[in-house]
């Protein structure tokens, strides 16, 4: 598990007490996902990783697991780099 995944796991673990969340594990299938987690997760991803989550990113697959969140952040960062003028 890389550093980003570890950070995401630490954040998510607060919502899944007593469960050793695995990188590919579907957090929606585990339950306990409500609007409180949803909005905090968006704020966390934006603040911790410096990416903006927009309306086009509202896709459960972007937030389904530690791995999918890490992939989403990497894609957003890649897109931001591409959009930056040389």
């Amino acid at each position, binding site marked *: 598990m890389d550093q980003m995944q570890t950070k995401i796991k630490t954040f998510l673990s*607060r*919502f899944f*007490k007593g469960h050793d969340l695995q990188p590919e594990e579907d957090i929606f299938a585990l339950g306990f996902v*409500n*609007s*409180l987690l*949803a*909005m*905090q*997760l*968006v*704020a*966390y991803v*934006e*603040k911790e990783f410096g990416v903006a989550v*927009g*309306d086009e990113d*509202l*896709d*459960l697959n972007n937030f389904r697991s530690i791995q999918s969140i890490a992939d989403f952040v990497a894609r957003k960062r890649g897109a931001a780099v591409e959009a930056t003028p040389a």
Partner: protein
Amino acid sequence: MNLELTAEQRSARDGFRAFVAAEIAPHAGRWDREEAVPPHVIGRLRELTLLGSNVAPEFGGRGRDMITYGLLTEEIAKGCSSVRSLLTVHDMVAHAIQRWGSREQKERYLPRMARGELLGALALSEPNAGSDAKSIETTAADAGDAWVLDGRKKWTTFGQIAGLFLVFAKVEEKPGEKPESKPAAFLVERETPGVKVKPLKGILGTRASMLAEIELAGCRVPKESLVGRVGFGISHVAAAALEQGRYSVAWGSVGIAQACLDACRAYTQERRQGGSPLADHQLIRRLLTDMIVDVRAARLLCLRSGWLRDAGDPGAFMETMAAKYFASRLAVRAANDAVQIHGANGCSDDYPVGRYLRDAKVMEIIEGSTQIQQITIPLFEFQEF
């Protein structure tokens, strides 16, 4: 966290305070009796750019920081909770668009909302759906090139005059799919055929908030009216709007409580009973002490919430709920004690404290009732420890 206001924030607060003292507070009792905020007052809010405070400069807004916005809300609420509720609901809609709207929606609506030319109203509650937002019955059907909305919204603040409704509906999906699992948010312009607005009168508090019932009958809106995506209407769009609303209501509650304190400070020094001013009676001082200390505590909670919101901190959600919970309950206690201190005078229209009590009660119900906060706040505690 810095507890000191900046020079700009103090200056802005002084400006808000002077405006409210001159143009809002002296007339609030009449507006309450007439159950309407006059158009010229909304015109003044527009001139002073007090609507759409948090809209980013990119979209023509002032981009006020959360602390300045809080100070504005407190000062307006000190004068008139109905005017405060206009700011609250308008800014909730603007915030939701700014947070989850498409680029086109932001460009179409936010500049006009920032100028106050277009008023926003939140159409979430229904006759059978209040705290349980997911149980909304309004439907949105996919008609190919448009969405067709059908249903009835209730308690829509400033629905009587708003030009834009943020409507929440459940999307009727393909056969076999559960429609209740697909809540969505739509921007519906007032002039859209099928929109019917019915004023609601005789409300307990914030009586000039021009509440309305909104009927949507075969209301066709463009596909581009969808905010965010289907399925995220409650969890993200409504959640963002309500979070903004809770923040505004928290500060508004501080404003009511401060107004109660101001009224009681003046009254207890002027009114004499038993040969001395009321302020010299120990039991009165006890009531004043609770008010003085609790107002300070509530304001600190609001400042902490604002500071975290400005920082984009995930913890802001909990702190905003805590601020709203504490401040709205305080407003009721303070207003109740203010009426008690004023005695029979407090029960008459000659003094504003009776209105404060009616307005304060509303604060415990809107944007998440006290009981909803009591269910939710411990969940944050459990996730932290």
